[in-house]
């Protein structure tokens, strides 16, 4: 993107930028606004959280530390990717809160830069960066989750618009979103069910679109079911061509799973890491002795250390192409599976470390770390289910990376 390569970077400029970013995040990060912040963009459950995080993203963008590598003409910084990487590192170093507009920043934005029309880029990209326009995704349906290609929501051409009827589910940020990336059926399924799907950039705040909150297993809100009742979408809001939506949706999933680059920067989720769990374990006792003297517990703790290092190292692998020649997409396509399953397992382990206090939940004054671990464990299923379940991920890796026959 932007045609920038490493050779364009003056190390002195990069250094100065990195130092400025470090100072800015040190100055501006507020880790404790007085209420519990969500761990990921999928868990924005209250208006208080929403407004805090939207303001935060806007502030980072205005300071030049988000979208630094997106083209200037669309609101980006027009700098080489190395600059955004420095800004993201600084944000992480100072524990900045997550960016909530994930579907815009990480999926829709790169997709539009890749496959969108110049008009679509001009219309949408800046609003994605500034968080003025929150985006959501309309892929899954109540009857078609993993089997995305079977989507039934209909879009019927009528003059200069499409009339949409149907329902989408698990709409993260559905309550707040101004736009949705929507996969809908413009033709009845042909020989292949993937035919006849079309990819729309659909407005949410129009007649015929209604969202209903869904209460999650944690007891919190975070996403909605979205209902379309003859909602009219302008005909020029298609990415690609009518009937070509499956290809666009698959490309979107590559961005979602991190198998393709071009994301705006920063991060949209913070995980429990092995070090935090270790810190907690240090305070716990078992049978009157420090828990960390228990050999079984030590062994498990080390397993998590190795796993967290596996994930960290594999995140670096894309920069070392000679190590990826045999199966170039393998490590990238495994990332979502590994990270989400790790997160689920380590939070589960953390609950057991809490001993009897593992019984408490968010809201009780005796809950360890305010119930963070139990809530994180329950929320971790959003990672192992959303965006394609871990079981579907294994099919994808098996079929696309290892060349196994379709299940």
């Amino acid at each position, binding site marked *: 993107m932007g045609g920038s390569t490493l050779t364009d970077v003056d190390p002195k400029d990069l250094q100065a930028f990195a130092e400025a970013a470090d100072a800015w995040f040190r100055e501006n990060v507020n880790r404790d606004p007085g209420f519990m912040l969500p761990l990921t963009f999928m868990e924005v459950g209250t208006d208080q959280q929403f407004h805090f995080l939207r303001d935060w993203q806007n502030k980072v963008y205005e300071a030049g530390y988000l979208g630094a590598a997106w083209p200037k003409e669309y609101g980006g910084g027009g700098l080489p990717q190395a600059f955004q990487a420095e800004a993201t590192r600084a944000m992480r170093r100072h524990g900045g809160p997550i960016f909530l507009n994930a579907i815009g920043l990480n999926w829709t934005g790169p997709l539009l830069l890749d496959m969108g029309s110049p008009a679509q880029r001009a219309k949408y990209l800046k609003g994605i960066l500034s968080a003025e326009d929150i985006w959501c995704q309309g892929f899954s349906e109540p009857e078609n989750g993993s089997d995305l290609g079977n989507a039934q929501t209909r879009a019927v051409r009528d003059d200069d618009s499409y009339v949409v009827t149907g329902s989408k589910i698990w709409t993260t940020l559905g309550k707040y979103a101004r736009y949705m990336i929507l996969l809908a059926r413009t033709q009845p399924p042909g020989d292949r069910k993937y035919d006849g799907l079309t990819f729309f950039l659909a407005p949410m705040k129009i007649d015929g679109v209604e969202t209903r909150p869904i209460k999650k297993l944690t007891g919190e809100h975070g996403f909605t079911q979205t209902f379309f009742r003859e909602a009219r979408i302008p005909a020029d809001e298609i990415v690609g061509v009518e009937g070509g939506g499956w290809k666009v949706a698959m490309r979107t999933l590559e961005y979602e799973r991190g198998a393709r680059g071009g994301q705006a920067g920063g991060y949209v989720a913070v995980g429990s890491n092995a*070090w935090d769990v*270790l810190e907690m374990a240090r305070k716990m006792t078992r049978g009157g002795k420090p828990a*960390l003297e228990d*050999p079984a517990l*030590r*062994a498990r*703790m*080390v*397993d998590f*250390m*190795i796993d967290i*290092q*596996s994930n*960290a*190292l*594999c995140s*670096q*692998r894309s*920069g*070392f192409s*000679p*190590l990826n020649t*045999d199966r170039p997409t*393998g*490590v990238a396509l*495994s990332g979502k*599976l*590994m990270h989400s399953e790790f997160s689920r397992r380590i939070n589960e382990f953390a609950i057991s470390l809490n001993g009897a206090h593992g019984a408490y939940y968010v809201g009780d004054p005796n809950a360890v770390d305010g119930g963070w671990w139990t809530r994180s464990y329950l929320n971790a299923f959003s990672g192992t289910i959303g965006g394609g379940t871990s*079981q579907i991920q*294994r*099919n994808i*890796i*098996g079929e696309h*990376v*290892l*060349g*196994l*026959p*379709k*299940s």
Partner: protein
Amino acid sequence: MQELGRLGFSEDQGSLLEVATSFCAKRSPMARVRQLIEDGIGHDPDVWREIVELGWLGIAIPEAYGGAGLQLAEVVPVMEQMGRYMLAGPFYSTTLAAQAILAGGTEDQKRTLLPRLAEGSITTLALCEANGDWDLANITCTATATGSGALRLSGEKRLVSDAASASTIIASVMLEGRPALVLIDRAALGPDALRREVIIDETKRACSLSLDGVEVPAANLLDQDRAGAALHHIHLTANLLAAAEMCGGTQSVIDYTLDYLKTRVQFGQLIGAYQALKHPIVDAYVSYEQTRSHVYSAAHCFGEQGVGEIATRMAKAQADTTLSFAADRAIQFHGGFGFTYDCDAQLYRRRAIWHASQYGDAAWHKAKLADLLL
């Protein structure tokens, strides 16, 4: 927060990886691996000469001692590809012996011996004993100074890799109550001193070595003050190289199994379409990529105080777990054929058992990591 290591990859690693991949593929097709299993010395001397000519024995030997002056990081891709194609030979033993001399030899010994090792003089280490302890400092064999200034050795060493083809063996002994390393010229050994052992990995060769009655000149003693440090360095080097060899093996046992899953038909469909087989092989593959990341992280950080040891132990633990799982599932997924000697899956399972048994398995290294990290 303790650093656990990071990836790095040098240009030299890149070119060695490329050359080693095509060399090992050409020189060690599976039919040849099977032939050499039946062979007495277990490797092809012509291939060994080629390896020497390629300069691989001297990769991590400093230029001053006749080597290329690179690091162990550059040995790792070579070892990895040897593991991938199961190329047999005393490369691992001799590389390890060179590291022992570098870490524990006198200046004189380095000047005399290392150029010879770089030129392919097969050398190996005799460290393991009847106690089977992975702690290399747990030594019961002894050396005693004789009146004439020589050292008289006693005790038994086990699992001495490639001893039968070696010209020199470096043994660990206790001398005046402290660990020491001594050079033994194999020509000085009696006819019954070496006994070929029956070991699980049939592509490898090992002997037990009786030290009783063996005498070596005092000049054969390595710098005793550095023996402890040398044993630690040997331990970590052995595990780094073993992890690399296992990592390569994991790649091929997965590829081998995938071939079967893509050709074998049961109940009217390719068995690779069944998720009961597909998902575990994916798990093995993902774990393989993680192992490879760990191996190259350990290679890159090997020389760094603290981090090098952590990264190396993680790499060996991960390599053991992964190859053991992948090869175990490979046997199972080949069904009845998997139960036969003809199926290559067993070769990899045996390889994993061998390396787990030498210099520490996953559980051992995790216990060490617990002490380092928790």
